[in-house]
């Protein structure tokens, strides 16, 4: 039983941990300053190609900036966004879901309508509008992504809460005199925790993708901060002469999303296995 989902959790979690380490250690790992332009070596190919040179292992972009260094520094934004956004969406979405599911009735109806209306805006458009309204910067990116994505958390968690509310242990807690807050924290939250953790992992991938989209269209963080989205946008201009400028940041995004989903999958399998009751024999 302990092996169920174990591999996925280890591989997914390992990749994510690696990305975070790279982000933290960026100043020591990166061979160059990510914004240094080497105008003599514009669009230099990766080291292993015939004209390659180990001073720029993954080549340079159209301004002669080192691709590897930019990739390493780009992990910083990804790591920050991928950590804070899931926590933010989780707190906002789950609290609203718990309140809606627990009180039911008009509270639930009102909150659910708000979620419905919110979700009827296309996510990308909504975040673009928000970013135009807010000044560019990391804080704004995080805020915009949280405000767009909390509804996913809310919907799914509310469904699970409604299922839990049918169980008699919620009624049982009420008649033992537990307060509403206590029931929510002690009986509801532990019940949906496995789901929330799984969703958190999925949200890591979503957050990284959303940030990449925003920086791709140039409304994310300040221009001097390298991000994977900006690299993809820059790489697009020289895609035929120097595909590596585009390929490496894309791979970085894909790898992150895959790792996050893999870990989420593994955790889901793991928690499912725990829910199965194996103490009673089949009749």
């Amino acid at each position, binding site marked *: 039983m302990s092996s169920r989902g174990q591999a996925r959790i280890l591989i997914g979690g390992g990749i994510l941990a690696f990305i975070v380490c790279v982000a933290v250690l960026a100043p020591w790992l990166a061979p160059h300053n990510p914004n240094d332009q080497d105008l003599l070596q514009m669009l230099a190919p990766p080291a292993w190609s015939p004209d390659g040179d180990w001073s720029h292992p993954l080549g340079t972009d159209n301004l002669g900036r080192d691709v590897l260094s930019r990739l390493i520094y780009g992990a910083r934004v990804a790591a920050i966004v991928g950590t804070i956004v899931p926590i933010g969406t989780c707190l906002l979405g789950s609290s609203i879901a718990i309140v809606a599911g627990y009180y039911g009735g008009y509270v639930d109806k009102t909150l659910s309508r708000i979620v419905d209306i919110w979700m009827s805006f296309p996510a990308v458009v909504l975040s673009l509008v928000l970013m135009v309204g807010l000044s560019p910067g990391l804080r704004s990116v995080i805020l915009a992504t949280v405000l767009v994505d909390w509804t996913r958390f809310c919907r799914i968690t509310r469904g699970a809460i409604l299922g839990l509310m049918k*169980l*008699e*242990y919620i009624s049982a*807690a009420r008649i033992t005199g537990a307060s509403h807050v206590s029931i929510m924290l002690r009986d509801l939250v*532990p019940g949906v925790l496995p789901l929330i953790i799984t969703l958190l992992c999925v949200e890591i991938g979503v957050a990284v993708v959303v940030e990449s989209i925003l920086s791709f269209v140039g409304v994310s963080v300040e221009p001097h901060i390298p991000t994977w989205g900006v690299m993809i946008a820059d790489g697009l201009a020289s895609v035929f002469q120097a595909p590596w400028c585009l390929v490496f940041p894309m791979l970085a995004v894909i790898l992150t999303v895959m790792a996050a989903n893999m870990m989420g999958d593994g955790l889901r399998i793991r928690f499912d296995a725990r829910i199965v009751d194996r*103490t009673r024999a089949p*009749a």
Partner: protein
Amino acid sequence: MTDEAGDRIPLLRAAGLTVRMGDIEVLRDIDFSLRRGDILGIIGESGAGKSMIGRVIADQLPDGFSVTSGMLRFGALDLIGMPPKDHRRLLGREIAFIPQEPMMALNPSMTIGSHFEEHLAHLGHTPSTMRRKTIEALSDVRIAAPEHVYDQYPFQLSGGMCQRVLIALAFISNPDLVIADEPTASLDVTSQGHIIGLLRRMQQKHGTAVLFITHQLALAGQICTEVAVLYAGEVVERGATKAVFTAPQHPYTIALKAAAPLLDGEWTPLASLRGHMPGLKEYRTLDGCRFAPRCATASDACRQATVPLRQKSDHLARCLYDDAEARVEFPEGAARASLGQSKGELLRLDSVSKTFFRSGWFSRKPGVNALRNVSLEIAAGEFVGIVGESGSGKSTLGRLAMGLEDATNGTILLDGKPLGRSEDEWERRIAAIQLVFQDPRAALNPRRRVVDLATQAIQPRMMRADARRARAETLLRSTGLPTDMLDKVSAEMSGGQRQRVSIARALCNAPRLLIADEVTSGLDVSVQAQILNLLLNIRKEYGIALMMISHDLAVVRYLCSRVVVMWKGEIVETGLTEEVFRNPQHRYTRELISAIPPDDMNQPWLPLLEFAKAS
């Protein structure tokens, strides 16, 4: 057993049948035989392995389970050795099944007619005759408007109707053998009578042999020619029904009989078996007689080597002792508390009604009238039983009294003062009244430990951890649980233990009224007896009043001095339990009582008589 008549060779015979999962013998050395036209009862509590026998016959053992030795013959055919393809060909033709959950067994997206068409096509009938044949089969099982039912969907029918449809489906191929796996477990007692009567009639009409799997002794006593009692994957006793039931030889059968509350006769304390049915993993540690750990008679010889089925006076039993009956110790039963009612009204419901609304987007439309004008008083220390079938509103009544639902009309008074919805009144209510839920698995938070669950009621008071633990220990002792269970979670306990924890939790703040909503209906008879005796002991210890909501009249008779009979949301009869049961006045009460198979198998059971008359 030897066959009395040479021409009646067994239709189904198992000898030494053993099913293993890994190194665990799930079924061990199963022997039985079923002759053409007979009904063999397989009796056992949950976890005894009785459904596993049906699965072997259906070639549907779960993954990892396999038959490792022994034989199972159907006529001259070897069901174990034959190719799966041939085996499958028998199913639905010569061997038919009547399942436990009629609603689940029918496809909700297919009409009743198309279920028959599918099956008949499988049997090789031409489309032109199908409809006629189906209508015939449906009228055979006493469905009043077969033409109408033909075009209906399963969810438009009641559970009893669905079971009739399934019986018609099972018998349409004129099978030699029908396996009925708890066919009435999910039905009300009045439909149970109809279904069993019908099954019996169909069986006699077609001369079919029936393997009748059940946990109800009284039911098996009424219809089975022979019975085999199963415990933990072993046949512990088998023989002619009469022989087994009048003079049981195995301590388990004796205990099972002594644990079932009776509907008439002298009130006697129930003998409850200690412990619970072992799970599959525990089989490994049970080398000898698997019943030994729960047996009062067991000696070292019982624990060391497997005990064979031995010939007793007139049947077989798997016990080393010939005087098992004399050696069974009946544990000291709980004394029935005095019937005298104490004065002082505790709870009163004054013409209470409850309507459930269907809510739409902007409107609420009245839906079901769950309760209509119900008035009821409960005195301090009084045990009142609320009986009725599903949909009678008895559970709603309990939830209203507890305050988990609001009454649409009427008032509820505690100590003469009406209970409203304010915070203070809620505190007053939960201090005096507590509810024990039907399903302890759902009523206990699976992530909390017993120590926290039992003392949930003092949690808001921020007590010191050791004081709380001490309180939990006292509660466990009151409810007969070992105190080493304090740190366990729900999944680590058996059904009976969970229900005890649930009761302990309700007792935590010493309430004056306990509402028990079908607290024993999910439990086996032997465990049920433990819980019922526990409730009697609690009365002695805490002087508590009890509102026992149950569909089981015998359970109510065992505990309660007064009974309230509910039907379609109304109280139709109320009075002292003995008087109501001996001399029921309302038509529905009479119907309810006559629908219960009598404990004494020699007494006639009305539903069977009715069917015998009709055919």
